[in-house]
């Protein structure tokens, strides 16, 4: 029996290839987008993890300086006096490559004899043996170059490479190439040198930047209790926490968008399967009449769904693979922006993602097919449901669905109010709001059509009324498609509004923060001496109205690694937007050195409040610094604090600076001032000078680049929804075959019918677009106030504008009209004889 039923199902789809195609497309696209995003995510994450692991090796802890660097004697003290067996001294700084302007990669100076205990790249060049190690240690100015960089520069063993270090160019000899460690990893190691060579190149004789250690917990506790003077013991990886949290949040956001495409795809499957069952309701009634049991019918439809899922998921996995190739670069670039790194290439993603995608695709198909399958099983053997009865049921269903939306909204609110304050809960709440929107859509569509009926009926006449009523009268087909389109367009609206709000907030933050006209920045590893004569001379440069001074450094605090930004502000103040705590009091306390302002990312991630204290190690002992306020900070780097420069100098005994802010007089020639500043600082100063407008432009460029992938994903969700509408319209058109024949018989011209169908599809789009306005705005508010907050710790102003909403409405109507082109063409081409003969 099942064999015959399955054969009947197969023949049904072969006779309705567009239905088969749309069902397959729904699943394939949903699975494809999800798998593509996951593959790209995983590939990028693994690339960065592997890159970090390559440098980390089996290091468990690091002994780092409280100040800028360490005397290498500390290393001897650790090994000999403290009897730590596995330790390796490291000197690390970023260097430029003369042949690759703008690229900065880490130069890692290590002791090759100690490295093999910690890092597998102690073997350096596979196949080249220890002979190279000996030469690396004995020959001055020799380095090992990462394979990708070597390939790009055409560097080979024996060739020379010009590095830019602290403003000067230094030629080094390439001793070998550092290849990948395993065959599936393309992550690149840094530029490697013997520690003595690195000290010489960096102009830091006898100094190291840290000591890498492999310690047991008890050894670590013992060492932490009595660290050498001027050092602090940190757990490996802790210093990357801020970056890791940011990158993880970014990837979580992408995963959610990928899942959304799958959810919209599921709508499409449901819609297609429901229609396939509706179309066969007569056949199903007959089958029940001749003795097929409900269980057999249920099994038959589920088998049908499984076969569809298998074919479509397979295609989806292929699509995902192709999509990932395009997406991975966008993900890598964004995460690269977060980590300030540009040397990481994609790694091979986990094959489990394909399994995950296949499982999700199959599960989504079966869930979507379950209700249609149950409907099929319940088909009455005595009487086949009349269409009118079906539509009445659909309308009752729309009312029930709308009621169901209310508890769902309550659940969403409860998750936000009482649920865990993490990102997954926030997305749970967001998906609940979307689901509620989808449930409200059919009733909203009916209400809108009833309203239009009254208006259009009066002004446009019966053909328009037929189109309007057709939407409501075909709710069993249009309801789900409109809901899918509304969800997709709401996503487009929501993300668009969020991006707009974010961009507005970023732009306004940049305007507040950039208090100077020109910024002179030095690498924190090579700060400028604070020469008061230079500052005085700067003030004398024609066009300069004032100079602010900054020292930036990274320290290990009681809440992990944080960036300290110590300022002596210029006339325009600190440029901080205080978001918690009284702003005036906070800025006054800050200026007087009575505390620090913490970035809101730090406050959020470490659950800090104004009034809490941060303990920072300093050369003059631990500093307990009260937090006087939280400030808005859209930087993607470390968690940060701001303090007065004098407060910093009092405890850190460091008079160097890493940044100068130059205020220009009105009408001053910025280029001339820049040239004069360069001349004053001298040719050896490794500084970058940028205008505030240049920084703003660059920041907005990075912002736009970051959201490129979001644009791609939301458009993909819209494509899936478009297919949903197309599917529904074709279903309606097929279902209305006879009605179309009658209309033609009483005098409708083909063009009238095409117009009628297009009007109907436009109305569907209008309904979805209108529902998407409030839904998208709610979504945007959630993204701005909850998702972004929990993802990145950023607060921003919610600034809804009509632009993205109008574009969403136009997209909804445009997509629906586009989807209506083929059905309207089919309606206008209907063979009258055939349509009426089917009577």
């Amino acid at each position, binding site marked *: 029996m099942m064999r015959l039923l399955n054969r009947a199902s197969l023949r049904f789809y072969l006779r309705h290839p567009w239905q088969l195609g749309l069902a397959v497309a729904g699943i394939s696209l949903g699975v494809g987008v999800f798998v593509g995003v996951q593959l790209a995510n995983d590939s990028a994450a693994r690339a960065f993890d592997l890159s970090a692991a390559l440098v980390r090796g089996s290091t468990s802890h690091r002994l780092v300086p409280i100040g800028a660097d360490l005397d290498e004697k500390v290393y001897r003290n650790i090994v000999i006096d403290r009897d730590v067996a596995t330790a390796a001294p490291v000197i690390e700084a970023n260097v430029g490559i003369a042949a690759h302007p703008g690229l900065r990669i880490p130069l890692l100076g290590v002791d090759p004899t100690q490295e093999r205990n910690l890092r597998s790249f102690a073997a350096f060049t596979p196949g080249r043996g220890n002979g190279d190690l000996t030469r690396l240690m004995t020959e001055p100015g020799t380095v090992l170059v990462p394979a990708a960089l070597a390939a790009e520069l055409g560097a080979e063993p024996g060739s020379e490479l010009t590095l830019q270090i602290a403003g000067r160019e230094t030629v080094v000899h390439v001793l070998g190439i550092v290849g990948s460690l395993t065959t599936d990893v393309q992550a690149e190691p840094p530029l490697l040198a013997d520690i003595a060579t690195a000290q010489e190149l960096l102009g830091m004789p006898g100094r190291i930047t840290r000591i890498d250690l492999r310690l047991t917990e008890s050894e670590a506790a013992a060492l932490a209790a009595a660290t050498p003077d001027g050092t602090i013991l940190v757990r490996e990886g802790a210093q990357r926490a801020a970056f890791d949290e940011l990158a993880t949040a970014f990837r979580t956001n992408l995963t959610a968008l990928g899942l959304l495409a799958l959810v919209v795809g599921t709508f499409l499957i449901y819609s297609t399967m429901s229609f396939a069952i509706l179309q066969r309701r007569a056949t199903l009634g007959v089958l029940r009449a001749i003795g097929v049991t409900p269980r057999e019918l249920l099994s038959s439809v589920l088998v049908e769904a499984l076969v569809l899922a298998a074919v479509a998921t397979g295609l989806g996995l292929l699509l995902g693979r192709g999509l990932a190739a395009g997406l991975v670069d966008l993900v890598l670039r964004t995460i690269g922006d977060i980590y300030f790194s540009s040397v990481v290439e994609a790694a091979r993603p986990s094959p489990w993602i394909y399994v995950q995608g296949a499982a999700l695709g199959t599960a989504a198909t079966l869930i979507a097919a379950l209700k249609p399958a149950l409907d099929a099983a319940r088909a009455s053997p005595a009487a086949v449901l*009349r*269409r*009118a009865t079906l539509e009445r049921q659909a309308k009752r269903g729309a009312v029930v669905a709308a009621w169901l939306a209310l508890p769902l909204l309550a659940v969403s609110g409860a998750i936000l109010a009482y649920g865990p304050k993490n990102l997954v809960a926030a997305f749970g709440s967001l998906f609940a709001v979307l689901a509620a929107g989808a449930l409200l859509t059919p009733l909203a569509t009916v209400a809108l059509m009833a309203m239009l009926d009254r208006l259009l009926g*009066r002004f446009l*006449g*019966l*053909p328009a*009324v*037929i189109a309007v*009523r*057709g939407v*409501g*009268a075909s709710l069993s087909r249009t309801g789900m498609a409109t809901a899918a389109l509304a969800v997709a367009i709401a996503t487009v609206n929501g993300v668009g509004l969020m991006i707009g709000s974010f961009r507005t907030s970023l732009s306004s933050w940049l305007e507040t923060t950039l208090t100077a006209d020109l910024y002179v920045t030095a690498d924190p590893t090579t700060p400028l001496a604070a020469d008061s004569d230079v500052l005085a001379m700067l003030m004398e440069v024609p066009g300069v109205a004032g100079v602010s001074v900054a020292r930036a450094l990274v320290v290990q605090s009681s809440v992990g690694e944080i960036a300290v930004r110590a300022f002596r502000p210029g006339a325009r103040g600190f440029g901080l937007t205080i978001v918690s705590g009284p702003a005036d009091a906070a800025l006054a306390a800050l200026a007087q050195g009575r505390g620090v302002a913490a970035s809101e990312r730090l406050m959020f991630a470490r659950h800090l409040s104004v009034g809490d204290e941060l303990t920072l190690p300093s050369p003059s002992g631990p500093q307990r610094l009260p937090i006087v306020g939280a400030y808005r900070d859209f930087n993607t780097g470390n968690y940060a604090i701001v303090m007065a420069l004098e407060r910093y100098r009092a405890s850190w005994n460091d008079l160097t600076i890493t940044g100068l802010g130059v205020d220009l007089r009105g009408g001053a020639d910025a280029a001339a001032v820049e040239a004069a500043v360069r001349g004053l600082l001298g040719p050896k100063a490794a500084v970058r000078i940028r205008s505030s407008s240049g920084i703003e432009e660059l920041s907005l460029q990075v912002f736009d680049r970051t959201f490129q992938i979001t644009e791609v994903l939301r458009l993909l969700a819209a494509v899936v929804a478009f297919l949903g509408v197309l599917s529904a319209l074709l279903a309606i058109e097929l279902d209305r075959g*006879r*009605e179309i024949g*009658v*209309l*033609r*018989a*009483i*005098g*409708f*011209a*083909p*063009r*009238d019918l095409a117009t009628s169908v297009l009007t109907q599809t436009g109305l569907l789009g209008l309904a979805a677009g209108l529902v998407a306005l409030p839904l998208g705005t709610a979504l945007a508010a959630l993204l701005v106030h909850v998702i972004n907050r929990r993802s990145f710790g950023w607060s921003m102003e919610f600034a809804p504008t009509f632009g993205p909403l109008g574009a969403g409405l136009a997209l909804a109507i445009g997509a629906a009209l586009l989807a209506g082109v083929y059905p309207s063409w089919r309606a206008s081409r209907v*063979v*009258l*004889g055939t349509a*009426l*003969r089917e*009577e």
Partner: protein
Amino acid sequence: MTTPAWIEVREVSKAYGAQPVLDHASLAIERGARVAVVGRSGSGKSTLLRLIGGLEPADAGSVRVGGADLGAYSEAERAAWRRRDLGFVFQFFNLLPTLTVAENVELPLALNAVVAKEARRRSLALLQELGLGACADRFPEEISGGEQQRVAIARAVVHEPQLVLADEPTGNLDIETAGQVLALLRHTCERRGTTLVIATHSADVAAQATRVIGIRGGRIEERAS
């Protein structure tokens, strides 16, 4: 003197796939006639009606109505002719489920650009005449089959077409209702001088016609009325 033919079906052939339905069939119908087309199932009665109504083209031969060759018309011209000069009554009523009874009747008037108020007035008057005044604001699914077929007749004649084609108009009704509907159709057309062509199995229906023709083996033959 013979009345000139108003409908001229000349040497028309029509096949669906390999199955011939009409084979060089010819027929002439004078204006205002009431003609019944009889024949067995599948004999080609409905096909003949669709050819006369310009709903589908003949494979060979020509169909002329009121001197106009329907085959020479474009699709848009045929649609314009149908909306002006043709009314169609189907076996299964085929009222538009999303329009009320009155709106269904108004539809041909709306297509002929009659202003909405006048269209409403005329449709209500006709419904009243057919005893359906109380049903005007109901939807088709809310009235009986007999009432639906009367609404379908109203829709077919409201714009006063020159020709009404009825395909098994009583085929889906009980005997009593069928008699009422048929009488109504006949009187309505007679009062307006409308030419009526009915395809039917029923001898009772055929008996109401002024002329009966049969179709056998794809050919049209005159029967005694």
